[in-house]
């Protein structure tokens, strides 16, 4: 069998990310995704062009947005003959969308596609509580007026308290930060190390903006021209003054190391990335920034097992490396999603641990350490913010452009996701 061709990362567009209930408080997922798409259309002259597919998703989604991506495309300047579908893999959504598009390109089923993601925690879907929902559904099922009246007679004032979506794992009742706090305590990840990684993320992102790195990756939206979570003057000293906000459940408060600074804030935003065959790009005189070489997903049992919620990438990466005959050190750049600073550090610690690599990964030797100077060189989620589904579609083009500017090389992407999942991929040019 001929090996499939590789999909090219051609370019991207995102809107700046905004802290929750701020600049984008009144914008919906559809508004933001459409804005990101239209910016991409403008940048690459795709007006009325029919894409092979547009694949995107959101984690927090209104039920009316069942066809979110299709609605965004219909409202964009792309050809209305562009088919779409929605995906949802929590924080892995954007990267998974890029993998799905790439796979169809690799198989020759499509020539070009757009992957994306969007999330808003400001315009979040609020649900009526289960008691009220049952009464209303019962009324809706009633076939007679009397039946409706009888069902509605079950209404009680207490049922009017709404359910606001919480960043909690349904099966454990713990917030993602509480899960991460357990992992941080398990791996002994120190506060200072987390604050150092955070300060570096802000400094790197600020430098990238100053260098104009994002000029062809972003279009302004609702008055923002850069991510408004960015604190370019962030320092370890300033971060060190923040009080811990996440505590390991059932553990010692003294173990608490995670603050609002070294954890990603709730964020609104959208990102898209243009993927195509080399031929499609060449015909239009468009660049190939990098190719998506391969990808892997993994999941861990954080419910009853003893693995951390956000540790799945630690399992996905070695499988990906083995399949591609690579070592962890064979990369020029690493993009490890900063859900929490401690998550990045725990993942690196796991790969350095002979015990973890032997007992959990079944490896004779640890994967080893990485050159930290190659990690998240243009900043990551701690500085930019993290609109869940958009993050993958932010990271793919960031890494592709980094490799391209480097004149070639290889990069690794690692994204952890709610539900104990992880999505990882290799880009190369």
């Amino acid at each position, binding site marked *: 069998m001929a090996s499939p061709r590789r999909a090219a990362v051609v370019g991207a567009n995102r809107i700046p990310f905004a802290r929750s209930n701020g600049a984008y408080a009144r914008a919906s997922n559809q508004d933001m995704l459409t804005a990101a798409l239209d910016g991409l259309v403008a940048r690459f002259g795709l007006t009325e062009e029919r894409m092979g597919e547009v694949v995107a998703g959101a984690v927090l989604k209104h039920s009316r947005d069942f066809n979110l991506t299709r609605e965004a495309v219909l409202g964009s300047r792309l050809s209305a003959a562009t088919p779409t579908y929605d995906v949802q893999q929590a924080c892995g959504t954007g990267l998974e969308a890029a993998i799905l598009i790439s796979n169809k390109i690799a198989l020759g089923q499509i020539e070009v596609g757009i992957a994306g993601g969007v999330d808003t925690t400001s315009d979040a879907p609020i649900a009526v509580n*289960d008691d009220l929902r049952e009464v209303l559904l019962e009324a809706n099922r009633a076939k007679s007026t009397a039946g409706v009246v009888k069902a509605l007679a079950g209404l009680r004032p*207490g049922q009017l308290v709404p359910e606001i979506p919480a960043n909690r794992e349904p*099966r*454990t*009742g*713990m917030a993602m930060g*509480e899960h991460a706090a*357990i992992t941080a305590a398990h791996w002994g990840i120190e506060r200072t190390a987390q604050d150092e990684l955070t300060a570096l993320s802000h400094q790197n992102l600020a430098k990238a903006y100053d260098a104009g790195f994002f000029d062809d990756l972003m279009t302004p939206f609702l008055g923002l021209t850069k991510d408004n979570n960015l604190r370019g003057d962030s320092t370890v000293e300033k971060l060190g003054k923040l009080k811990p906000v996440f505590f*390991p*459940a*059932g*553990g010692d408060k003294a173990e608490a190391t995670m603050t609002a600074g070294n954890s990603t804030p709730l964020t609104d935003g959208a990102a898209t990335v243009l993927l195509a065959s080399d031929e499609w790009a060449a015909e239009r005189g468009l660049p190939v920034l990098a190719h998506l070489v391969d990808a892997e997903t993994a999941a861990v049992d954080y*419910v*009853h097992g*003893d693995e951390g919620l956000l540790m799945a990438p630690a399992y996905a990466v070695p499988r990906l490396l083995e399949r591609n005959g690579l070592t962890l050190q064979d990369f020029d750049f690493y993009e490890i999603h900063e859900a929490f600073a401690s998550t990045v550090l725990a993942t690196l610690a796991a790969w350095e641990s002979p015990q973890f690599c032997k007992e959990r990964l079944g490896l004779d030797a640890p994967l080893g350490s990485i050159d930290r100077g190659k990690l998240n060189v243009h900043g990551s989620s701690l500085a930019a913010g993290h609109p869940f589904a958009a993050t993958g579609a932010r990271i793919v083009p960031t890494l592709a452009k980094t490799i391209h500017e480097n004149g070639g090389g290889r990069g690794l992407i690692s994204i952890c996701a709610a539900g104990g999942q992880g999505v990882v991929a290799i880009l190369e040019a």
Partner: protein
Amino acid sequence: MPTETLDSAPTLGALYGRALLTARSGGHTLPDRTLELVNVTIDPDAVADYAHVCGFRVGGELPITYPHMLAFPLQMRLMTDREFPLPAPGMVHLRNVITQQRPLAVGDPLVVRVHAERLVAHPKGAQVDLVSEVGLPDEEAVWHSRSTYFVRGAKAEEAAEAAPPEPDPHVGDRPHGVWTVPGDIGRRYAAVSGDVNPIHVNGLAAKAFGMPGMIAHGMWSKARVLAALAGRTDGAVTVDAVFRSPLRIPSKAFLYTAATKDGWDAALRSKKGKDHLLLTVRPA
């Protein structure tokens, strides 16, 4: 033991009323009869309501704790009888062991049998076992349950015998679940189970019975723990639970679980680490 077949399930509200009103004459021996209900059909809506309150998924099989809903009215009927040697109000559920050969299905025409046995002295009172069986007509019961109830200050003639060893779960020190148990869980479980014991629905009544305040039903806690182990407790199993201390509501509760070589261990604890419930799941 003779069997008395009832026409329909007794209404629990009425039984509680009777329990509170009846003067305690109380016999010295347990009633020598088995109460039976035949042709019990399951209302799928009632199972769905139960599943929603306890966290089970809604499906064609009855949750392993659901047959207790069918047996409990018969238990109450026995225990609120004037001749029953222990008073029903203020009874505390100490332990519940369920063995299920296979899950029962919604739609099975079920037979439910309940009798009382093992009335013995307890260091602080007396205790009794209510034994329940549920199955299909003309075959061996596939669901067996033994509930041990305790009454403080009550007397029993037989000395306390050595009880079968209690479940002894071995779990780690990191919780696998943090539950926010709402204050209305007693009312909601009462609505689906018919168990309207005032200690679960009214703070003043709970204090009147010596509780610190409103408490969750023990069988709700057990059901909720088993629901948390969904997908891991299939087949023929015995689930043994001891209720160590009342779970006040509203409150936070912490679930600890661990896989054993052939089953699961679980503990439900308070924030301060006090055991509410200890549970083991083992092959039957």
